[in-house]
């Protein structure tokens, strides 16, 4: 009897490790091993197929001397900052407005959330037509009589990246709204009541009390949206296909074409390592602070 309980307790101790082991192994191989391999490739002269020689940081030098890469990095910066700020801001605003005990809230919520159900390919294609000056908004407005109206960002290399922001925000702000709305519902009404009794105005209550209380929701929104921002390869592909010319290139589209279409596997690997370092520069301080807080708390 005691032996069998001993066995089962030992099994209970081992079971989690056994269950986790295969997935851990898969993660180690498919993620970390390939990161390592990409790192190795980035210091070789690999072009069409991998070659294992050592050329130091040549590929990185070559990468940073490529104008297209500069465009890609600048675009990623513009896109992620604006996309994060606008989606979060709009999402919060929509959530606060929806939280005013209005009628048909359920229907409105569904409408705002619906774009999230679409794939980026659909969003990109639809917005490509909406923003095409000869088919979409510009044509409708000029046909209505305002003949000097211009909305041709998508044809302008300087402005085209902002059309990607518009489409991305359209798709994701409803999602941010849903998370904020859930956060708002979790706030105790008595806090607001107490503030009202103290004579605080509604904007002040929101600014000083409610929004700070939404910090956990804000954190999840930012983490989820940054992940969407970095992987937004398909949106660019569908909306502008990197164009006009190469104006809306992102690091991810750059890496793909360098590695698989342009015989520059080494440069592609170097660009992948640059992306990894960028992500690490953001994630590691975040993880560090989170872990430290847990230890202190």
């Amino acid at each position: 009897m005691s032996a069998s309980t001993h066995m089962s307790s030992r099994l209970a101790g081992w079971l989690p490790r056994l269950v986790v082991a295969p997935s851990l192994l898969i993660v180690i191989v498919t993620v970390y091993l390939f990161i390592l391999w990409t790192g190795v490739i980035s210091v070789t002269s690999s072009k069409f197929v991998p070659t294992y020689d050592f050329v130091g940081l040549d590929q990185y030098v070559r990468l940073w001397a490529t104008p297209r890469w500069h465009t890609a990095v600048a675009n990623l910066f513009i896109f992620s900052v604006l996309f994060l700020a606008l989606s979060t801001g709009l999402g919060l605003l929509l959530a606060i407005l929806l939280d005013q005990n209005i009628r048909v809230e359920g229907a409105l919520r569904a409408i705002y959330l619906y774009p999230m159900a679409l794939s980026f390919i659909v969003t990109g294609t639809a917005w490509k037509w909406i923003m095409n000056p000869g088919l979409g908004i510009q044509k409708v407005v000029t046909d209505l009589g305002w003949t000097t109206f211009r909305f041709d960002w998508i044809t302008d290399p300087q402005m085209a990246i902002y059309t990607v922001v518009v489409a991305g925000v359209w798709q994701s702000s409803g999602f941010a709204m849903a998370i904020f709305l859930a956060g708002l519902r979790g706030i105790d009404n008595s806090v607001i009541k107490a503030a009202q009794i103290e004579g605080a105005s509604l904007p002040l209550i929101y600014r000083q009390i409610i929004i700070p209380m939404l910090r956990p929701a804000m954190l999840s929104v930012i983490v989820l949206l940054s992940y969407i921002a970095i992987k937004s390869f398909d949106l660019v592909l569908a909306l502008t296909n990197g164009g006009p010319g190469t104006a809306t290139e992102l690091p991810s589209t750059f890496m793909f074409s360098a590695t698989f279409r342009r015989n520059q596997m080494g440069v592609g690997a170097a660009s992948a390592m640059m992306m990894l370092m960028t992500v690490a520069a953001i994630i590691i301080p975040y993880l560090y602070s989170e872990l430290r807080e847990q230890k202190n708390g």
Partner: protein
Amino acid sequence: MSKFIATALAATMLMPIAARAEGQIEVLHHWVSQSEVEALNVIRKALEAKGFQWKDSAVGGMSGANAQQALRARLTAGDPPGAMQFLGWEGVQWAEQGVVRDLNDLAQAGGWREALAPQLLPFVTSGEAFIAAPINMHRQNWVWANKKIFDDAGIAVPKTWAELIETGKKLKEKGVVPVAMGDEPWQIGIIFDALLSDLNGPEFYQKTAVDLDPEALGSPEMVKVFDTLREIRGLVDDNFVGRDWAVATGMVINGEAAMQFMGDWAKGEFLAKGLKPNQDFYCFATPGKVTSFQYLIDSFGMFTVKDETVQQAQVALAETIMDPQVQKDFNRIKGSIPARNDVSVDDFDDCAKLGFQERATAIEKGSMQGAMTHGFAAKPEFASVFSDVAAQFFVGKMSSEDAVKMLVSGIDNAR
């Protein structure tokens, strides 16, 4: 029991061999559109007549880049397909890796070298080895024009780029879009390739697009190419962003636009609408002092495999592809012309006949050259610099001088 398992194991192990015994060959390619599949059926049927089955392995998308990825994975796993469609330098690069079968015996017995233009050989041979069987040839530098628009405006087929631009300006005043195109770098690249040779001669094309000679790349002639490209931008409407090439062809067909610069795959769009060359639409080469013929070919290469039946099937497939009758039937459907020079094209359409004829003169005059935008001149890492610069220049406000500087430094950086 254990005997049963052993038999079952043996049976399952034997099964694939049994299936291969009837002679099956897997062919990896990226042809998925209707006319492409119908054209492939010509090869498939001829192969079946020789007693071998074609196992289709189509990976579409990204102009063949997806199929290339599939191939890399298969080669790494040690399980290459029997045959693969090659574009540009792909075949030669795989041959340098030592994974492609040498078809030299077949080539010698079949007289392939004599049947092909010498300009093709760099793409189908590697050293002494013959590594791929070319099935067709497309020409990249065609102009497709709406005949009614030309007739109504009383204009003739332009003989120089200056004339073409003048014609375009006239048409623009009449409210017609002179040039239909999209902003994709390869669509811009088609015009750029043509200008290199048409404005400065085939030698200039050789020096820049093939030899990457720094002096020629930075020369005043190159500035002229960009200047002319800028004038062409003035003939394109502002809605060109994100426009597919076939949509642009549709604009010429509908009479919205007068001309399109596009390879002869555009012809299929006209023919599908029941339109006839020289009656409803014009096809003519981009105008130059020496008429250039910028080609691209599709070829099939065979990988080194151990299985003997597959090896036999590879021989049968290569012979099928090089069969003059197969090349004729295939190309009538695909819209291209046979890769072989010795196939009669009398029953082809007028555009194909014109192309066939101009190819013969171009071979003599040295103006038959590989189309850089489709990977038949400089290696991809250099060709992509040309297309990047041309595309950025075309959609933006860069000066021709800056574009030339960017080109020279870009090529240096890729070396």
